[in-house]
C-alpha cells in the first residue's frame, strides 16, 4: 500500500494509505481526544469527541474512523470543533452520575479530565430519570459502577477482541442502554476471570478493581 499526504493543523503529514486521521495525528504528535478508540482494533466511532473539521466536508467527521485521503486538509482545534466537543462532553456528563460528580479525587476519570480541559461546567440538561445503577461488588476481580459508564463500548470490544472472552454486550436501547453480562446479571466469577483487560480500557470509574475493606 502506498502513502498519502495530508495536512493536519497546517502540518504536512505523510501516512500509510488506509490510516485514519486519528492515527495520522497521533503519529505526528497532534493530540485528539477519544474515549471509544482502542489502538489496533476496528474503530467503533460512538463517543464522537474525536471529531475534526475537514475542508470540503459539510459536517465534522470522526477522526478515529475516517481514513486519511490524499490532499485532505484537517483542522483539529477550530472553534467549531471545540464547541462541538464541549457539548458532547456535557451530554456525557449528564448521564455520568454517581459520587464521582462531587468527588475532588476523580482524577482517573478521563471524562472529568476532558471536561476540565475544555472548561465544561455542570451540565445544563435536565433528565427525567437520572441514570443510576447500584454498584456491583460481587465479582472478586471487577467492580462495576454502571452509573458512571458512558457507553463507549471499549470494555465490550476489549473483552471480545483482546481477552477473547466475550462476556459483555450492550443491552436495551436509547436512554436505557447498558453494558450487560449474561441476562443482565452481575458479573459472575465463572464468566469473568481476572484478566482485568476491561478495567485497563475503561475511560471512567465504571470499571475498577474491587474496593478492599
Amino acid at each position, binding site marked *: 500500500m502506498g502513502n498519502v499526504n495530508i495536512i493536519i493543523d497546517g502540518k504536512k503529514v505523510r501516512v500509510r494509505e*488506509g490510516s485514519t486521521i486519528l492515527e495520522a495525528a497521533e503519529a505526528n504528535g497532534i493530540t485528539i481526544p477519544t474515549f471509544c478508540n482502542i489502538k*489496533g*482494533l*476496528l474503530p*467503533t466511532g460512538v463517543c464522537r469527541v474525536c471529531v475534526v473539521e475537514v475542508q470540503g466536508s459539510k459536517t465534522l467527521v470522526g477522526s478515529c474512523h475516517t481514513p486519511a485521503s490524499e490532499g485532505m486538509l484537517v483542522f483539529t482545534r477550530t472553534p467549531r470543533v471545540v464547541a462541538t466537543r464541549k457539548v458532547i462532553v456535557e451530554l456525557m456528563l449528564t448521564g455520568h452520575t454517581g459520587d464521582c460528580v462531587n468527588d475532588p479525587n476523580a482524577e482517573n476519570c478521563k471524562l472529568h479530565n476532558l471536561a476540565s480541559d475544555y472548561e465544561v461546567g455542570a451540565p445544563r440538561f435536565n433528565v427525567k430519570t437520572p441514570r443510576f445503577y447500584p454498584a456491583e461488588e460481587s465479582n472478586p476481580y471487577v467492580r462495576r459502577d454502571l452509573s458512571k459508564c458512558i457507553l463507549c463500548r471499549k470494555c465490550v*470490544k476489549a473483552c*471480545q*477482541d483482546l481477552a477473547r472472552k*466475550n*462476556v*459483555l*454486550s*450492550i*443491552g*436495551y*436501547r*436509547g436512554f436505557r442502554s447498558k453494558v*450487560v*453480562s*449474561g*441476562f*443482565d446479571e452481575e458479573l459472575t466469577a465463572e464468566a469473568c476471570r481476572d484478566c482485568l483487560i476491561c478495567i485497563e480500557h475503561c475511560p471512567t470509574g465504571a470499571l475498577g478493581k474491587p474496593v478492599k475493606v
Partner: protein
Amino acid sequence: MSDKKKTTAGGESGAGLLSKLKSEVERKNYLSRETMAGVAGQSDLPLNSVYGVASFYAYLPVFPVGKNVIKVCNCLPCEMKDVPAVVEGISREIGIGPGQTTPDGKFTLELVSCIGACDQAPAMMINDKLYGDLTAEKIAGILKSY
C-alpha cells in the same frame, strides 16, 4: 487495514439470530432464560449477545407479557399528536400504566420506539394489528374487541 482485527456482534454465528428469536416469541409469547440459552447454544453465541439483541427490540419481550401486547408509539410525531392522552385513555380503560400487565394477563401496555406509522400519528399496535389516528375516545371500542 488488514492488520486490524474484525469486530462484529457475534460474527458469522450471529446469522439468523433475529428470525430464530422471533419464531420463539411466536411459539412461546416471550423469551424465557431457557429459550434464550437454547438459542445461544444453537447459534454458538454467548448469552450476553443474545440478551443484548433481544432486549433492544420491543418485539422480543424478555419478560413474561400478557396475551395481547399493546405497543404505543412513543416517538416525536406521535408525541406531537398527543400520544400521552392516548396512553391515559388506555390506562383508564384497563387500569395499568406503561410497562405493566393486567392482573388477568389479558393486556400488557408498552411504550415503544417508532412503529413506522407517522402518517397516522398517534399510532399503536396490538399484537400485529396497527391502529392509527387514535384519540382517547376511540380506545374503549378498540380494546373491546380483544
